C-alpha cells in the first residue's frame, strides 16, 4: 500500500553543509500489516516517518528528487498541499512519542477528537461528539463521557496516549504511523498501550508503521522488521527471521547487546564483537547474590523523606511522602538494584543517601556511622567515599568546564594529589581507565557523545576513590549498544576496585544483569526485596509480578550467541 523508493533526505547544518539523514532507503508497507522500523538514535527512523507525511521542516531540509513515496499509487512527495491535507488524519494517521506535548493544552480532549472527525467526515457536531465518546471507549478510557470535557493535563501519560490513539483512528485510517508511542511511558503502561495498538490493528485492518528503538518490543506484534543504522537499512525481513536467524551483524548485535532476563554473561557483547572474523561466543555466566560472609558497608534503617511545598506567603503547606520506611543493606563489592516506575521515590532515595536531599526520619549507617546525623565537616570525608552518577549525561557535566577542570576539581577539594600537575596526571590515568584517551582532557563536554560523557562522569567519581557508587538511571538515556559498553565498564570497575553499587533503574533487565540483591519500590515504599535470581524467578508481591509481566519478551526462541 505504501511504498518507499530510494528515499534520500539531508539536513543543512549550522555551517551550511549537507548532512545526510537518509541514504536512499526503500521498503514497502503492505495493507493490513505491521512493519516495525527499529534503530538507535540518529538512524533516521523518525525522519522516515516525517517524510511520509511531509511533516519535515521546510527550512534546511532537502529531499532528493529521485525519491518516491507511493501511497495508493500516488507520490506523496509531489502531492499538492491540498491533497496532503486530505490524506493526513484521514488515510494516514500518526501517534507521537510524547503525548503530553503532542496534545494542545488549552482545548479539551473531546474538542480535539471532534475537530479531526468534522474535518474529514461529513458529520454534524452532535454525531461527531457521539463518535468521539465511542472512540474513547474503544481505546479503553474509563468514563469516556467525563473524559470528553477533560483537558490533557488532567489525564495521566497513558491516558493521554490513548487519547492520541483515539484521535488517530477516528477516521479509520489505512495507515497508522506510531513514532515511539510508548517510550515516554512506564513499563506497565507501555504494555497496555502496545496491546491496545495490536488489537486495534486487527480490528480495523490498518497497516501500521511502528517505530521503536527497542527490538524486543516490536517482536510482540510486528509482521516485518526493518533494522536501520545511520540512515540506511541494514536488514529487512519477516519478524521470525529477524529474531531466529538474523543475517546482519548489526541486527545480531542489537539482539544480544541488551541484558537478558534469562542470561547473565560475565561481559555483555558489544557491536564490535560481532564484526570480527571469528564471530562472537558468549563468555561464561556470572553468579550473583549476597554471600553470608559479605561485609556490610551501608545500612539504611527506616528511611523516610517528605517534601513540603507551600504556595505564596499564606498558602497551605502540602506534604508529600516521597520515601517511606525504607530499609536495606549494601555489602562491600556487591550491587543492590532498586527498581520502580516513575514517582516511586527511587531517585529521591539516591539523593537522600548523598545528603543532597534532607531525610525526615531514619538512619543511614556508613561504616557504622550515621551519615544523616553528621556535621558538615565530618560529612565531607564520608561524601568522598559515596558518589553518584546521574541519568542525563548531557546535564551532569558543567558545560563551561573542560574535562581537565571537571576531573581535577574533586581532587582539589579533597586534597588528593600534591599539585596541579599531579592531579592532571591522575585525571589522565582515570580517563584512560574508563576508556577515553587522555587527549580528552582539553576538550569540553559538548564535544563528546552521550556514552563518552557518562564515562567522564564515572571518572569524576573515581578520582575520589569512593567505596560506593550510586548509579541513578545512569544507562537509561543511552542507546542499547552504548548501554552495553557502559554496563561492562561498571562491571569491570567493580571487579577491579571492589566498588559497591546502588543501581537505580526502571529497567528490570538491566537491574537483573548487574545486581546481587534487588529492591522493588512503589509509591515510596519498598514492596519486595530479595536475592536477584530468586526475586525474578519467584516474585511474591503482586506489583513485582505485574512489573515482570510487563517486560517485552521479544521472541520465544530468538537468536542466541554460542556459549564459549
Amino acid at each position, binding site marked *: 500500500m505504501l511504498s518507499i523508493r530510494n528515499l534520500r533526505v539531508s539536513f543543512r547544518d549550522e555551517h551550511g553543509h549537507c548532512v545526510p539523514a537518509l541514504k536512499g532507503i526503500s521498503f514497502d508497507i503492505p495493507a493490513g500489516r505491521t512493519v516495525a522500523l527499529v534503530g538507535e538514535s540518529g538512524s533516521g527512523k523518525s525522519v522516515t516517518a516525517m517524510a511520509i507525511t511531509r511533516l519535515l521542516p521546510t527550512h534546511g531540509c532537502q529531499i532528493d528528487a529521485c525519491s518516491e513515496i507511493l501511497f495508493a499509487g500516488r507520490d506523496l512527495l509531489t502531492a499538492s498541499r491540498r491533497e496532503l491535507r486530505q490524506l*493526513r*488524519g484521514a488515510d494516514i494517521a500518526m501517534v507521537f512519542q510524547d503525548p503530553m506535548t503532542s496534545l*494542545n*493544552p*488549552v482545548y479539551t480532549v473531546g474538542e480535539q477528537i471532534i475537530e479531526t472527525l468534522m474535518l474529514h467526515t461529513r458529520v454534524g457536531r452532535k454525531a461527531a461528539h457521539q463518535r468521539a465518546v465511542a472512540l474513547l471507549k474503544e481505546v479503553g478510557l474509563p468514563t469516556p463521557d467525563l473524559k470528553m470535557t477533560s483537558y490533557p*493535563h488532567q489525564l495521566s501519560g497513558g491516558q493521554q496516549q490513548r487519547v492520541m490513539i483515539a484521535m488517530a483512528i477516528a477516521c479509520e485510517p489505512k495507515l497508522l504511523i506510531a513514532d515511539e508511542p510508548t517510550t515516554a511511558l512506564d513499563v506497565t503502561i507501555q504494555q497496555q498501550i502496545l496491546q491496545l495498538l495490536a488489537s486495534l490493528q486487527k480490528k480495523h485492518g490498518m497497516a501500521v508503521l511502528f517505530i521503536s528503538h527497542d527490538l524486543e518490543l516490536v517482536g510482540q506484534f510486528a509482521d516485518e522488521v526493518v533494522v536501520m543504522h545511520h540512515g540506511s537499512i541494514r536488514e529487512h525481513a519477516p519478524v521470525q527471521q529477524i529474531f531466529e536467524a538474523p543475517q546482519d551483524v548489526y541486527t545480531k548485535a542489537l539482539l544480544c547487546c541488551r541484558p537478558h532476563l534469562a542470561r547473565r554473561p560475565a561481559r555483555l557483547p558489544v557491536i564490535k564483537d560481532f564484526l570480527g572474523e571469528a564471530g562472537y561466543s558468549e563468555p561464561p555466566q556470572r553468579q550473583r547474590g549476597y554471600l553470608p560472609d559479605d561485609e556490610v558497608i551501608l545500612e539504611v534503617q527506616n528511611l523516610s523523606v517528605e517534601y513540603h511545598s507551600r*504556595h505564596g506567603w*499564606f498558602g497551605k503547606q502540602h506534604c508529600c511522602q516521597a520515601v517511606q520506611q525504607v530499609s536495606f543493606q549494601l555489602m562491600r563489592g556487591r550491587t543492590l538494584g532498586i527498581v520502580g516506575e516513575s514517582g516511586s521515590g527511587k531517585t529521591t532515595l539516591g539523593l537522600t543517601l548523598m545528603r543532597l536531599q534532607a531525610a525526615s526520619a531514619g538512619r543511614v549507617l556508613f561504616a557504622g556511622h550515621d551519615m544523616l546525623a553528621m556535621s558538615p565537616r565530618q560529612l565531607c570525608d564520608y561524601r568522598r567515599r559515596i558518589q553518584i552518577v546521574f541519568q542525563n549525561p548531557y546535564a551532569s557535566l558543567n558545560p563551561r568546564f573542560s574535562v581537565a577542570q571537571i576531573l581535577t576539581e574533586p581532587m582539589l577539594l579533597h586534597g588528593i594529589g600534591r599539585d596541579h600537575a599531579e592531579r592532571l596526571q591522575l585525571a589522565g590515568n582515570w580517563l584512560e581507565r574508563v576508556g577515553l584517551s587522555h587527549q580528552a582532557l582539553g576538550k569540553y563536554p559538548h564535544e563528546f557523545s552521550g556514552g563518552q560523557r557518562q564515562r567522564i562522569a564515572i571518572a569524576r567519581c573515581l578520582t575520589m576513590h569512593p567505596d560506593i557508587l550510586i548509579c541513578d538511571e545512569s544507562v537509561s538515556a543511552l542507546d542499547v549498544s552504548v548501554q552495553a559498553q557502559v554496563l561492562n565498564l561498571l562491571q569491570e570497575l567493580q571487579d577491579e576496585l571492589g566498588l559497591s553499587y546502588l543501581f537505580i533503574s526502571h529497567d528490570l533487565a538491566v537491574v537483573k544483569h548487574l545486581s546481587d540483591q534487588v529492591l522493588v519500590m512503589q509509591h515510596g515504599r519498598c514492596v519486595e526485596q530479595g536475592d536477584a535470581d530468586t526475586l525474578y524467578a519467584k516474585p511474591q508481591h503482586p506489583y513485582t509480578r505485574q512489573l515482570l509481566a510487563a517486560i517485552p519478551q521479544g521472541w520465544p526462541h530468538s537468536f542466541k550467541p554460542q556459549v564459549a
Partner: protein
Amino acid sequence: MLAFIIRRVGQMVPTLFGVMLLLFVLFNWVGGDPSYILAGKNLSPEALANIRHQLGLDLPLPQQFLLFVKQVLTLDFGVSWSTQQPVSSILHSRIGPSLLLTGSILLLGTVLAVVIAALVAYLRGSLTDRLVTLISTCAMSISGLVYIIAGQYWLAHKAGLFPIMGWSDRVTENLLYYLPLPLLLGVIVGLAPDIRFYRSCFVEEMSHDYVRTARAKGLAEPVIMLKHVLRNAMIPVVTSLMMSLPYLMMGAMLLETFFGIPGMGKEVVMAVDRSDFPVIKAITIYIALATMLFNLLADIVYKLIDPRVQLS
C-alpha cells in the same frame, strides 16, 4: 475563585506597605526637609516652624509614618503644595483623560500588533517577515520623543491635519478632534516593540509538538494558526498586556505633556517640577494599587485562557 481573590488581595497588603515604606524613606528621609521648599523666599524661622508643624515634620519619624499610612488608608493626601487644592480632587479630574488616551492606545495598538505579528509569524522566514522585523528593529531604535516632536510638527503644524494641542470638557469633541493625533503617535511608538515581542511568542508556540499533531490531522495552516496557536500564544500576550497597563498610564506622560492633555502623566511631570510631594506620593500609591489590581486581573484572565492554571 472568590477565596483566591480574597487571598490575593490579602497578599497585596505587604506589598502596599512596602510601597508606603519606600515612598516614606524617599520623601521624608532622602528628600530632606521639604519645609525649605515650601517656605520659598521668606525663610523666617517662625514661618519654617509653622510649616513644619502643619506638615507634622516636628513629630518623630515613626509617627510621621503612621500619619502617612493614615493618609493612604483614607486616600486623603491633604492639599497640593503648589495649588493648595485637595490632592484627591486634582487626581479625580486627571484620571478621565488619562484613561481615555491610554485605553484607546492600548486597544488599537494591541489589535494591530497581534494581527501583524500573527501574519508575520505565519510567513516566518519569508521576505515580508524579514522586512517587518528589520523595520521594527529600526523603528524601535528611534526615541519615542522624536516621533512625538516630528509628528506634532509635521502633521499638526505643517500639514494642519490635526489640532496642535488642547483638550475640552466634552468627550465627543475630545474623541473626534483632540484625541486622534496623540492616539496615532502613541500607537506608532508602541507598535514596533509589540510586534517583535508578539511575533516571538507566536513563533515559539509554532515550534511545539501539538502543532505537529494538528498538521498530522490534516488541518490547514491558517486554521492551525487561528485555532491552535493563537489561543496558546495569547497567554504571554495577555500577561504582557496586563503588566503594561499601569506602565502605559505613565508612558502617556510625554503625549500628555506635548498635547496639553490634563492627565495623570502631565500632573506627575508638573508635580516633580514643582516638588509637589503630596501629589507625587498620591499618584505613586494610586498607580501601585492599579498595578496590583491588574496583576490580579491578569491571573484571572490567565485562568480563562489556560486550563492548566489552577487558582487554588
